[in-house]
Every structure is written in structure tokens, then in C-alpha cells.
């Protein structure tokens, strides 16, 4: 009986608590506004660094939107890219779900391929405040061309490299090198006394392809060219040899990095065990400012001159980073398209972008506000990288190509521990990746 009573009480409590939690204190909407009585659903990535602030931001956005339009905003979060994908798949398939999605830039091509999101007309762009309110570089991955854009830039998260200023000073290195070969030479000098030159996450599911892409594109190979995969070109092989060689043969990376995720690489750098931490965004600042290297590190752009070269080769792009950040897309099935565009307009205004930057440390895509940040010396490298970032190929097959690129690294790891980069094995893995990438591209529509 006690258990039954307890369950009954619990059920009552839940029933009573539900409506209470559902109606948080929001201002009453003024009658006559277009969105009165309507609710917009928005799916965004859960912010694990600032969870409390994110909840507050949700409430603030909803309240502000209500005063502007009469409609409230309900936020849903996803914890991982896989979560996000599942949500998108089920929503697209059932034609119901969030009205607005915040998508990672590299996922935008895949989202575009589904045909489930609104392609923005000139009129739509006007409704979000005009295409020219955004930094031109951030529009690079909104669609395959200007006429077919789905993604509205929301935040910019360019990749940079953190370096330990004390270690570099002690070794007499004035500044990080601008060539990958130069960085390796510096890393060798700095690998001493139990510390390593570089902290690199070889076990991460995403980091490795970003290195391979950057080194390839700098050497003039964008990996995809007119529907043809080019993963098996010499420049990409060289990129893999360089990247894997740091751990296997150059020994400038902690051998344990063979299994590291990105967060572990940040932790190793934060513990003062590595001099350089390439491929991190400004969000690493939160962790590093609480670590033992607080005040002893700085950010710089990653090298833009490919391995084996001393200057940018012909056709090479001096990309400092992939075009990284979040785009907002509006679902075609949404019955509140105009309201959704109003919300996007609100979120990408200079004022909202300032709040967002100050709360979460993510760079704005709003050109007007971005200008005011350029003068901040602490942000110089990150803003610089944002302007010099380059978009990954806009193809619905890109997610598959990414996976194929990372797979080469995953399958190479056992050999790294043996202190070598097995050329024959690498060639065969890269050939497999090329086949997978090409077959994905062949199916692209």
C-alpha cells in the first residue's frame, strides 16, 4: 500500500507540476501583433559550457520576441551531432517539428540536400534584415550558390591555435610559424623534459579531417572538384603523412594522443604539457582560463603554407580554418515562416549578437557588430581567422567524405604506436576513402 500511495502522490505531483513548469513568467503579448497565440519551435545545440546562461538566454529571447511579435519561442536542444541528425530526420520525414534549426556549418550542405529547408528569396533575405547585414565570409556556406541559399549565418567559430607563451619564450621562439614545416621544427625544439610540442586529438571523430582538409586546400586541392573526389592526390597523402608523422615518427605529440578526443587535447595543453594546441575555437578559452596555463597562453592563426612548401603554391588557398559556426535554417513544413524569419532577424541583429558574444564567447556574423570587435587585441587572431576561413565543399555528400577522411586516421592509429607511418597501408586506406567519397558524390543530386 505504501508503494501505491507513493506512486499516486508522485503522479499527482507530476500532473500538478507540469502546467506550472510549462508557463514560465513571460510578458503578456499585446493584442493585434501578428504572432499572438503562436509558438515557434527552435532546435539548437545544448551548450555544455554555459548551461545555466543558455537557459536564461532562451527565456530572454522568448520574452523579447513576445513583446515584438506576440509569439513565444520554445527551445529544444540536442546534445550531439548524431542527436541533431536524428531529430532532423524524424522531423523532415513526418513534416512536423522545429520551425527553425541551428545547424553546424559543415552540416548545412547535407541539410540543403534533403530539400526540407526554405531556400531564401530576395524577399526572405529582406525579412531577416538584408543579406548585407552579414560578414561576407560567413555567407560562404549558406548554399551552393547565391540563388540557392538556405543557411543564415548565426555565429562564427573559426579555428585557431593556442600556444604557451612561456614555453615559446623560454625556447627563444618569437612567434608561431606560418608554415606547417616551421611549426614542426618549433614543436621539435619544444618537445623536451616530458612536455610535447603539439597537443593533437587523433581519436576525435571530427578534428582529423579538418587538418587534412586544411593542408590539402592550402596545397591547391579542395578535395572535391566539380563532382570528382580528389582524396588520392599527392597533396592529401602528404597531409596524412605530416599529420600522422607528428605522433609516429617526429614524436612531438604525446603517444597517448592516439586515443584523445578534442577535450583531452585541450586538457593536456591546459596542464602545461604541450606548447601548441592547434584546431581549437575560442570556446576553449573558458577551459584554458581555469587551467594552469591561464594568462600564459595566446591564440594565433594556424599555418597557411602546406607541408613541404615555404610559400603558398599556385592554386593554394591560404585557409586558416574551415568556415565554422552555426547557420539558422527554416523548415519548409513550418506554418510560421514569416514569424521564423522575424526571429532570425532578431537573433542576427547587432544588439542580439553582442549579447550572444558576451554570454557565450561566440563571434558575431553581423557585420556591424563584428567591426567593433576587430580592435580587441585579445581577439585579433580569432577575428583574423574568421576572415580568412574557407568553406568546405558544398555537397550533399560532404558528411560521407568527412567520415571517409577520418576513417583513414582511425585505421592508421595502430601503426602509429609502432613508430611508423606505413606508406603502403596509408595509400590503400586513402584509396578506399577516395572510392567511398566518389561513390557518395556520384549519388549527389
Amino acid at each position, binding site marked *: 500500500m505504501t508503494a501505491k500511495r507513493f506512486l499516486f502522490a508522485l503522479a499527482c505531483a507530476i500532473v500538478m507540476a507540469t502546467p506550472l513548469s510549462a508557463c514560465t513568467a513571460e510578458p503578456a503579448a499585446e493584442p493585434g501583433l501578428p504572432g499572438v497565440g503562436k509558438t515557434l519551435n527552435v532546435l539548437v545545440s545544448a551548450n555544455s559550457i554555459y548551461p545555466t546562461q543558455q537557459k536564461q538566454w532562451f527565456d530572454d529571447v522568448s520574452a523579447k520576441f513576445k513583446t515584438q511579435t506576440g509569439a513565444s519561442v520554445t527551445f529544444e536542444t540536442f546534445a550531439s551531432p*548524431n542527436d541533431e*541528425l*536524428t531529430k532532423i*530526420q524524424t522531423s*523532415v*520525414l513526418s513534416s512536423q517539428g522545429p520551425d527553425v534549426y541551428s545547424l553546424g556549418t559543415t552540416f548545412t550542405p*547535407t541539410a540543403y*540536400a*534533403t*530539400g*526540407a529547408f526554405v531556400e531564401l528569396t530576395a524577399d526572405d533575405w529582406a525579412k531577416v534584415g538584408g543579406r548585407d547585414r552579414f560578414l561576407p565570409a560567413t555567407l560562404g556556406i549558406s548554399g551552393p550558390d547565391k540563388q540557392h541559399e538556405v543557411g543564415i549565418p548565426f555565429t562564427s567559430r573559426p579555428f585557431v591555435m593556442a600556444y604557451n607563451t612561456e614555453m615559446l619564450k623560454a625556447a627563444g621562439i618569437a612567434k608561431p610559424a606560418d608554415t606547417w614545416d616551421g611549426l614542426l621544427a618549433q614543436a621539435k625544439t619544444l618537445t623536451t623534459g616530458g612536455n610535447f610540442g603539439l597537443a593533437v586529438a587523433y*581519436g576525435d*571523430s571530427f578534428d582529423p579531417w579538418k587538418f587534412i582538409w586544411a593542408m590539402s586546400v592550402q596545397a591547391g586541392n579542395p578535395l572535391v572538384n566539380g563532382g570528382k573526389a580528389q582524396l588520392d592526390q599527392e597533396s592529401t597523402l602528404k597531409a596524412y603523412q605530416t599529420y600522422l608523422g607528428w605522433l609516429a615518427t617526429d614524436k612531438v605529440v*604525446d*603517444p*597517448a*594522443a*592516439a*586515443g584523445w578526443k578534442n577535450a583531452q587535447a585541450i586538457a593536456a595543453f591546459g596542464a602545461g604539457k604541450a606548447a601548441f594546441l592547434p584546431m581549437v575555437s575560442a570556446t576553449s578559452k573558458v577551459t584554458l582560463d581555469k587551467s594552469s596555463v591561464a594568462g600564459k597562453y595566446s591564440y594565433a592563426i594556424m599555418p597557411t603554407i602546406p607541408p613541404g612548401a615555404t610559400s603558398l603554391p599556385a592554386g593554394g588557398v591560404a585557409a586558416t580554418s574551415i568556415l565554422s559556426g552555426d547557420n539558422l535554417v527554416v523548415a519548409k513544413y513550418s506554418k510560421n515562416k514569416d514569424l521564423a524569419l522575424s526571429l532570425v532577424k532578431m537573433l542576427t541583429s547587432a544588439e542580439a549578437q553582442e549579447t550572444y558574444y558576451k554570454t557565450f564567447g561566440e563571434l558575431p556574423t553581423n557585420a556591424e557588430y563584428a567591426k567593433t570587435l576587430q580592435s580587441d587585441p585579445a581577439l585579433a587572431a580569432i577575428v583574423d581567422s574568421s576572415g580568412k576561413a574557407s568553406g568546405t565543399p558544398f555537397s*550533399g555528400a560532404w*558528411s*560521407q567524405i568527412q*567520415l571517409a577522411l*577520418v*576513417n583513414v586516421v*582511425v*585505421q592508421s*592509429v*595502430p601503426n602509429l*604506436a609502432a613508430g611508423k607511418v606505413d606508406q603502403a597501408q596509408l595509400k590503400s586506406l586513402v584509396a578506399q576513402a577516395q572510392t567511398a567519397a566518389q*561513390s*557518395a558524390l556520384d*549519388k*549527389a*543530386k
Partner: protein
Amino acid sequence: MLAPGGVLMFVVIVVPLAVALYVSLLDLDQYTFRQWVHAPFIRLGNYSEAIQRSNLLHSIRISVGYATIVTLATLPIGLAAALATQNRFRGRGLVRSIFLIPYVLPAFVVGTVWRIILQPDGIAEHTLSRFGVSEDLWLNGPRSFWALVIVQIWASWPLVYLLALAGLQSIDHTMHEAAALDGTGWWSKLRYVIFPFLRGPVTLAMLIAFLHNVNNFTLPFVLFGVPSPRDVEVLPVLTYVEGFQNFRFGVSAAMAVFSVVLIAIPLAAYLRAVRLDVGQA
């Protein structure tokens, strides 16, 4: 009186299975899935692609190999634990509860904890190095297969233990008395009195364990991530990657159908053995 059960079976089993079968015949991917009923019908194209151009056969070998080893290894551990806790002793309840911990922990937690233990420069490496073993790579390469086997044994032996314990409880105490009166030794008692009673529940435990191991997605996914190292590219993970990372839903459904066939074989053998399939006469 069969109607409710029949409807339930239709909705819960037949409909999803039929949809999966249908999807496995479609060229369903990120370009077509918005209007999936209109996706091109390609007959058995996905099946031939899965066999010829994916790692399916390799994955089936890995899955069956690992599931068999784990199932066989958990048998003696589970049996021994059940026998050890059968007789009353002080603290038996506590021991029995502790034995169940690995089984009640969510696979996600088990995977995360073991991932930390087994990572390079982790606890496993440091402990083993004291015994002169200098292996550091457990989450990739050939040893990853054994990492998966060990962790899964750790997580799944209590199932055999539970069912063996249930079997032991069902043995009437007069059997024990009779054996004692006859002056039977412990091995003979075990072999001729106890084991015959355990055959049913333990076989069932092994079957469930095998099916669970073949179908296990969470543990390998959390332990090794994706893309999966080749030595632990089990069938459920391959199916997941094909569907949710490569967006080849048709091929993924074909792989899922293969896995249904794979688990149906031992299941059919078991049902035949216990004659559950003849129904009530």
C-alpha cells in the same frame, strides 16, 4: 481471445518489420528521404551493395565471433557465482546485490567508464605495466577486439548468474537431502543432480546473452566511437553508420534485415529444442 495479442504483435512487430523490408528495397538517402515513399525502387540492389561493397561480411564475422566468445565465457562465471551464493551465509544478500551491479548499469555508463580505464596512458596500462605488460592501445588495433570481449563479459555475466540462481532455487531440498544420504561427492552431485535442473534456464540465458551480444550497439559505440576501428566494426555499428552518418537508409535497412536473419538462426534452433513452437495442443 487471441485478438489483443494479435493486434499488438501486428503493430509492434509486423508493421515495423514490413516497413524495414520495404525500405531495404528502396534507394533511400538524404536526397530522397523527405518523400520516402517515392524513392526509387531498386529491388535487391541494396542487398548486393551491402555484400559486395561494404564491410558487411567482415562485420558479421566480428559480431558472431565476439558474441560467441562472450557467451561461452560468461557461462562458467555465472554458474560459479550462482553456486557460491546459493547456500545461506552472512552478507549473502549484499553479495548477491553487488553481483548485479554490472548488469543494472546502463551500457552507456559501462562504456564510458571502461573507455577511461582503457585509454592510452590510462588505468589499465599503468596496472598492466606493473606486471611487465607494456600494451597501451586497447581502443584501436587488434587488442580492441579483446577489449570489447572483456568489457562485455564484465557487463553481461550476471544474466547467466541470475537465471542459474533461479534454476537452483527451483531444486527441491529433498533432492539435496537424497544426494547427501547417498553420500554423493560434490562433483557428482553437481554433475548428476544440479546441472540437469539448470539446463533449461542456463540454455535460455545463453541464448538471450548471445542475441544481446550480437545486437549490442551502445557498448562498442561508446567504447570506440565512429568511425569504428576495423577490429571492432560490429554489425549494429556498421548499420548505424550506414544509415545515420552516410544517410544510406536503404543499404542500412538491408543490413538490418541481415542481422534479423542472423539472430533468427539460434532463436529457431532454441525454439525447436524446447518445442515452444508447437503451441498448445
